[in-house]
């Protein structure tokens, strides 16, 4: 039997002290799956409460703690680390022909920080919970809230440094460790997307760490920093919070866009349409994404002039996002499309991201936002981006690279079925929420007027289907570890560098450092070669 990164050592110690980026990727995969399940359980409870107009299942107090738990877990402990820490960790070195990330021990530290932060966050939830919402707005969080704010804030603070170290590692790796011949414009777009994401992690995260630390200090020592009684400004907190937390949305979606660029080319057998535009639009999204945070504060007492500036800038960020969507669609045009599971996720992503992105324009518009602010319209919008976008791409990527990571093929029939169940369940869950929000149902309430019940029942029914859809891959992927067919090095006939080595890869990734002689996505050349032979 061949030696590879999984079977060279089976001891627990060899996993907990590993500096192999592939093993750390697997550690992240296991841990974020756990957090996804926990965050999902909180979502189930929220949806069950909203099945009836009355607040009957849980108390108002408990409901507040449930949606906060859902938000904190999903944002900080699932979505932000999801694609970068699992797929990025595993595949960036392989895609650039390197043996590891630049700082392998920092990479392991990043996992430990994530786990420490995650466990603190969990202990906050178990030990009484928090009811501030995932946004920790002051002065409620710093003065009045009676939950475990300090524990949760510390957890988020520590997990933030995990994210910073991952980003820092990626930037340095991509700059210094590319294989011979691998110029910037030969890089897979997955790498470009992570490069852009990493800058948000490095430059944005410290600001939220700083402001969360200030909230913790204010609670712990009674030192007034945001306290209105001393003349403190609640909006200051919101500025500092959203300076990170809006770009954090791009930490979630940019890597997803990177995944989609890989999948859409491989399953259309075509080079990507407008490579440079897709590459540069990642950088543009990361940069412009830092200039739009004030659209979260349109109705919070921010100056109306600032509101106008932020509104205009928010519209700007739609341009690079649209460039990407158009280019993926153009890539499909006249491609030899095969509807393998990753491609179904990709097509799902394209539709759902388009809806999520376009409704974002509604919210960037000052007047419309006043109408739908803090309603279910907003909830639906960001779930279309984060679940319809990021989670679809994440699952598509997991399926695409599963054979490489494990050496096994997953069952294709079940893969396609689950992708379609998830797509249907997702839309049934969240599309009614657009309507509810537009009709005026506010978010974060455990009871609502009777006339909203039909749409809420639809949403809860959809959530059940969606939850079932998520459980399916969990089962058949685990099943495939033992019973799946041997994948071989390149089951998708992909031209990516990561497919030019064994599955699962050897510890050093490549037997010899590869030399790159062609652009990324040279599927046309590959097809021509196949025709000739």
């Amino acid at each position: 039997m061949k030696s590879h990164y999984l079977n060279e050592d089976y001891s627990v110690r060899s996993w907990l002290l590993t500096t192999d980026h592939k093993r750390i990727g697997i550690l992240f995969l296991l841990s974020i799956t756990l957090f996804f399940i926990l965050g999902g359980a909180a979502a189930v409870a929220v949806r069950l409460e909203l099945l009836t107009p009355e607040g009957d299942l849980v108390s108002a107090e408990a409901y507040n703690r449930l949606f906060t738990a859902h938000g904190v877990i999903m944002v900080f402990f699932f979505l932000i680390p999801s694609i970068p820490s699992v797929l990025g960790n595993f595949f960036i070195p392989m895609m650039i022909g390197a043996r590891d990330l630049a700082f392998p021990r920092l990479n392991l530290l990043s996992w430990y920080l994530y786990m420490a932060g995650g466990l603190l966050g969990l202990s906050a939830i178990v030990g009484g919970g928090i009811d501030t919402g995932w946004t920790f707005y002051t002065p409620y969080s710093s003065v009045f809230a009676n939950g475990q704010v300090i524990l949760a804030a510390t957890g988020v603070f520590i997990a933030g440094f995990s994210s910073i170290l991952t980003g820092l590692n990626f930037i340095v790796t991509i700059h210094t460790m590319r294989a011979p011949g691998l110029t910037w414009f030969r890089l897979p777009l997955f790498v470009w997307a992570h490069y852009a994401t990493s800058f948000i992690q490095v430059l944005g995260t410290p600001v939220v760490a700083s402001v969360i630390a200030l909230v913790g200090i204010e609670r712990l020592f009674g030192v007034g920093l945001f306290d209105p009684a001393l003349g403190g400004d609640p909006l200051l907190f919101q500025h500092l919070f959203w300076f990170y937390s809006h770009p954090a949305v791009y930490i979630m979606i940019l890597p997803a866009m990177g995944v989609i660029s890989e999948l859409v080319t491989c399953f259309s057998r075509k080079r990507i349409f407008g490579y440079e535009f897709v590459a540069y639009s990642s950088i543009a999204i990361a940069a412009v994404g830092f200039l739009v945070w004030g659209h979260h504060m349109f109705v919070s007492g921010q100056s109306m002039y600032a509101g106008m500036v932020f509104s205009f800038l928010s519209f700007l960020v739609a341009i690079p996002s649209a460039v990407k969507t158009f280019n993926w669609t153009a890539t499909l045009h006249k491609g030899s499309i095969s509807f393998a599971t990753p491609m179904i996720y990709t097509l799902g992503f394209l539709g759902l991201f388009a809806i999520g992105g376009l409704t974002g324009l509604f919210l960037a518009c000052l007047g419309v936002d006043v109408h739908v602010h803090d309603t279910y319209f907003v909830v639906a919008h960001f779930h279309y981006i984060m679940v319809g976008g990021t989670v679809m791409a994440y699952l598509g990527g997991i399926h695409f690279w599963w054979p490489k990571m494990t050496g096994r093929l997953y069952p294709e029939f079940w893969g396609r079925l689950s992708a379609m169940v998830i797509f249907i369940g997702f839309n049934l869950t969240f599309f009614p929420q657009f309507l509810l929000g537009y009709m005026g149902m506010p978010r974060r309430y455990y009871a609502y007027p009777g006339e909203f019940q039909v749409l809420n029942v639809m949403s809860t029914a959809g959530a059940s289907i969606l939850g079932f859809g998520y459980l399916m891959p969990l089962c058949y992927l685990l099943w495939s570890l033992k019973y799946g067919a041997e994948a071989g090095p390149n089951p998708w006939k992909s031209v990516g560098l990561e497919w030019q080595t064994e599955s699962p890869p050897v510890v050093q990734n490549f037997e010899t450092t590869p030399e790159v002689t062609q652009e990324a996505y040279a599927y046309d050349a590959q097809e021509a070669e196949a025709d000739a032979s």
Partner: protein
Amino acid sequence: MAHESISRTTYFTIFLILLALLVVTVRVADVDLGRFNFLAAMAIASVKAVLIAYYFMHLKTQTQLTRLFAGVGFAWLALLLVLTFADVATRLGG
């Protein structure tokens, strides 16, 4: 490391300039210049920071890319300040 090194004389010269700037900034603070006191203090601090970064931190002999990374943190801090003050400075009744 392969970089051309900076001489000890340069280090001492820069150090003396930094001390001189420290004295200047304390003295200038005692003169009433209105709002220019703040600007002068920040200008002097920035000069000191640039001297430290350029000579003590060897930006002088570093690649353009490293200089870019050194600048990007300050640039992003400027974004944070400018857009926050876009609100704070124009808020009505604040």
